[in-house]
């Protein structure tokens, strides 16, 4: 049992939970949360791939990729949330 095995399986589990949630969730906000779980799981796997047995330094390239992924993810989240806000406002106007 090494950290890479433990956290690698954790990442896969989080990705699976997110995927199931994205397919089954009804609420829009919750679906965004589910997709964010998927991205978190993918991040786990990349960080695990970069890990080396402690005296050795980890591989910086996957780390840079995950940081890029985190920034791209917050951009996508912000646009998704803006669309949700707009959709909700339009629906509320239709109801009136």
């Amino acid at each position, binding site marked *: 049992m090494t950290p890479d095995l433990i956290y690698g399986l954790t990442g896969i589990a989080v990705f699976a939970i997110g995927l199931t949630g994205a397919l089954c969730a009804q609420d829009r906000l919750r679906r965004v*949360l589910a997709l964010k779980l998927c991205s978190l799981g993918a*991040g786990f796997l990349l960080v695990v791939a970069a890990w080396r047995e402690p005296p050795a330094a980890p591989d910086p*390239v996957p780390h840079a990729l995950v940081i890029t992924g985190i920034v791209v993810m917050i951009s996508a989240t912000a646009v998704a949330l803006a669309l949700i806000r707009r959709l909700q406002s339009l629906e509320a106007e239709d109801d009136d």
Partner: protein
Amino acid sequence: MTDPFLILDLLLAGAVIALAVATLTVRDLFAAIVLFIVLGLLSALAWVRLSAPDVALAEAAIGTGVTGALLLKTLHHLRYVAGTLGEQTAHGVTPVTPVPMSVIWANAAFCGLITLGLAIAFLDAPLGGPGFDALVADAIPASGVDHGVTAVLLNFRSYDTLMEVVVLLAAVIAVWQIERGLSEAPSPDLSVIWQGFARLTLPAIVVVGTYLLWKGSEAPGGAFQGGAVLAAVGILLLLSRLYVPRPAHRALARWGFVLGTGVFAGVALLVTGGGRVTFEYPPEHAKTLILLIEGLVTVSIAVTLAALFHGREPVAVRAKEARHDA
């Protein structure tokens, strides 16, 4: 004897999985978002265990902190529009029609198959194998910085980072377009204590953000982490209404959004010449150029993230309303 760190790893992994399940199953959306924030912080802790402090910092600051603020702000808006603001409601905000159990089971089976495939592939994959470690270690002296991740982000793979900044710029443009003409939920009335808190913490946050940026050339930290921490300054200013966006500030904000991308692309083009290709910094100026890019990209990231939190662009109508209120 069992390694105490192994127990920590197992506990953290268990907590992360449990929180992921709880985020999607808890009925109250506010609780779901808070659980997601806790999940992000624990993931950051797990990544520190995997000796990835840069990624952990970015996840804690951007993936959890700023994202959490965005999610909570959206929930506030949705509840305001739905008219359930302030109610102790346990329901979601989108009308729910029941899904047939057969669909749920089919989805679950499908996801189970994918997960099984991923797990088998992961267990078969060689871990800890040779990656780019040796290449990066060889090239570091020529990169102008001493820290691997910063060298990769701002020298070896600059195209990725430039595109990342462009994505952020595209996001803020999209949000301004989507929210055009959208009525805004009144921001919650925050007490005087909150303003005092903001006054006390703002200088400290500015120092921490700048330190993260400066330290990035030799130790974990850098433009993205520093930018996110500085974005927290903007969010605090907006929340405590120490700063109220005015239509006249739009031009300044636009300059702020494009500053990082512009300087990054400008440097990339300027160094071409003398037989060099795009992004091939001359070694003797590499550190200066990287710090220049990082500093201005940090400003852009901070302004953009704060603008993403604020949502719609400040328009003239709002200023009139504000004057009516006053």
